[in-house]
């Protein structure tokens, strides 16, 4: 019997479970090249705040995360802040969880593949004073959302795949991911 070994195993399991994430959808896998080509803007940044609100038609909840940009990998270099919009969120006592969306969390550092919402406006969306050109959505829903941990590893989750699980980059050092993105020829 090796109690120490068991305790260590349990502690390791604790660690793994703390850093695991849950997910709720079936999606087509996108490679880094596909994500890059599908993005207007790719940034590394930190979530400053998140607010949820009702859509314009009052039928659904959406959230907007305000991001402080640390590094622009692709796109306009001059932006310091952007807003990312996604369905789901909490307002008062009502919550909406959307299966293939991984909500952004305040303080989270992440790499995001983004496209502008200016061409995506639909009836159910809100209209704020902010220009739509400043609002982005994540490409491929949760697939374009990498969380960067304190060791500089980029991880994604919050979705499941139909086929092509080997095509996606996950648990990859951030600098290598950035190099792969910059190596994609548009």
């Amino acid at each position, binding site marked *: *019997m*090796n*109690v*120490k070994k*068991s*305790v260590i*195993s*349990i*502690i390791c*399991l*604790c660690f793994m*479970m*703390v850093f*695991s994430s*849950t*997910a*709720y*959808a*079936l*999606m*087509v896998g*996108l490679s880094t090249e596909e994500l890059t080509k599908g993005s207007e803007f790719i940034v590394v940044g930190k979530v400053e705040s998140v607010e949820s609100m009702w859509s314009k038609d009052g*039928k*659904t909840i959406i959230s907007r995360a305000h991001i402080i940009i640390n590094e622009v990998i692709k796109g306009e270099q001059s932006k310091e802040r952007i807003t990312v919009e996604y369905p789901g969120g*909490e307002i*008062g*006592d*009502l*919550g*909406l*969880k*959307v*299966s*293939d969306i991984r*909500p952004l*969390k305040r303080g989270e550092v992440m790499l995001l593949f983004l496209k502008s919402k200016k061409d*995506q406006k*639909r009836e159910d969306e809100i209209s704020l004073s902010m220009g739509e050109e400043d609002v982005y959505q994540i*490409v*491929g*829903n949760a*697939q374009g959302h990498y969380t960067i941990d304190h060791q500089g590893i980029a991880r994604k*989750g919050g*979705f*499941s*795949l*139909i*086929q092509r*699980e080997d095509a996606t980059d996950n648990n990859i050092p951030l600098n290598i991911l950035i190099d792969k993105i910059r190596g994609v020829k548009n």
Partner: protein
Amino acid sequence: MLWVATVFAFEVCRTPKQGYEMKWSTSSVNYWVNTTGGPSGSYSAIISAMDTWTNVNTSIFTFTYEGTSSIPIQESDGKNVVGFLSFTSSGIDQSLGRSNIRYYVSTGEIFETDIFINTDYPLATDMSPKAFDVQSIVSHELGHSLCLADLYSTNDSEKTMYWVMSNGETKKRTLDQDDINGITYLYPGVQTGTLLLPIGQNIYFYPPVTDPVKSLNPAMAKPVGVGSVAFGGYLFGLHVALEQFSGPADIYGAYYLSSNPQVIFNLKPDLTFQTFSTQEIIQALSTGQPPAGAVPWKGSVTGPIDEFPLGNIPLSSIPSGTYNLYLLVTQAGSLNAYYLWNTYFVVP
């Protein structure tokens, strides 16, 4: 001595801020089926997927169907709907299926879910190898509506909640034991009787929970809750709950700090702690005899147990660190056989 560490693969979803488990408060949920846009046989495929989950005999949960309907699936209208949708025209990209789960923030109680299947992909109900199987998709998505999450390990590849699905694949139609464990955990069947005293050495680990979960199945029980610290709150509130035992049992509660794993703190009946070295505990578990002077928190009791022995303690009054908590239930007077539950909490 054989150590059996039981860790579940199934994952449940939680509210993002408070971390409450999300689940239905009712044991029966009605679904409408909107087959518009789906392949022939969709209604039967969807009903079969519902029946698959309903037929788990260790869970009281049942899906019932109201019939076909033209109810839109994307609206919050108090009706649960499974249906088909072109995602491209709806501004959703890349997903084969999506579930909208509506819940109360204050409790995590789900009050409506809608499931939609993307008609932009080839769909079939006849096991066509070139199309995606509707029954498999709905079985998987219904798991989400229960609030089970995807599983990523290749060890889980045979399970309905595994994260990858291929065209022509139909194995998600059939639940794996772990899928069954998941629905049983969230919606356990009506159980009567007592928690049988241990006959072997059984170790169960689970991540921190706010409140304990009682179960007659020790593998399903989470007998130690830690209060709001479980999900970023500012209070540690030890809460211990166990079902009635089949005979007299001793209950030990202990903890150690990750920064000092050589010292084990054992909870005494007067709610003070006595310390032992890790070596003493190892020897006790090896010989089946408690360390000299060790007393259980509760000796020779039959339960049920439901206590907050330490009340709520602000984290500001607790030294920083990771606290590893153990609850050990043994046959009274012996350590030869036991249930040992392990969880933890972190004080920043």
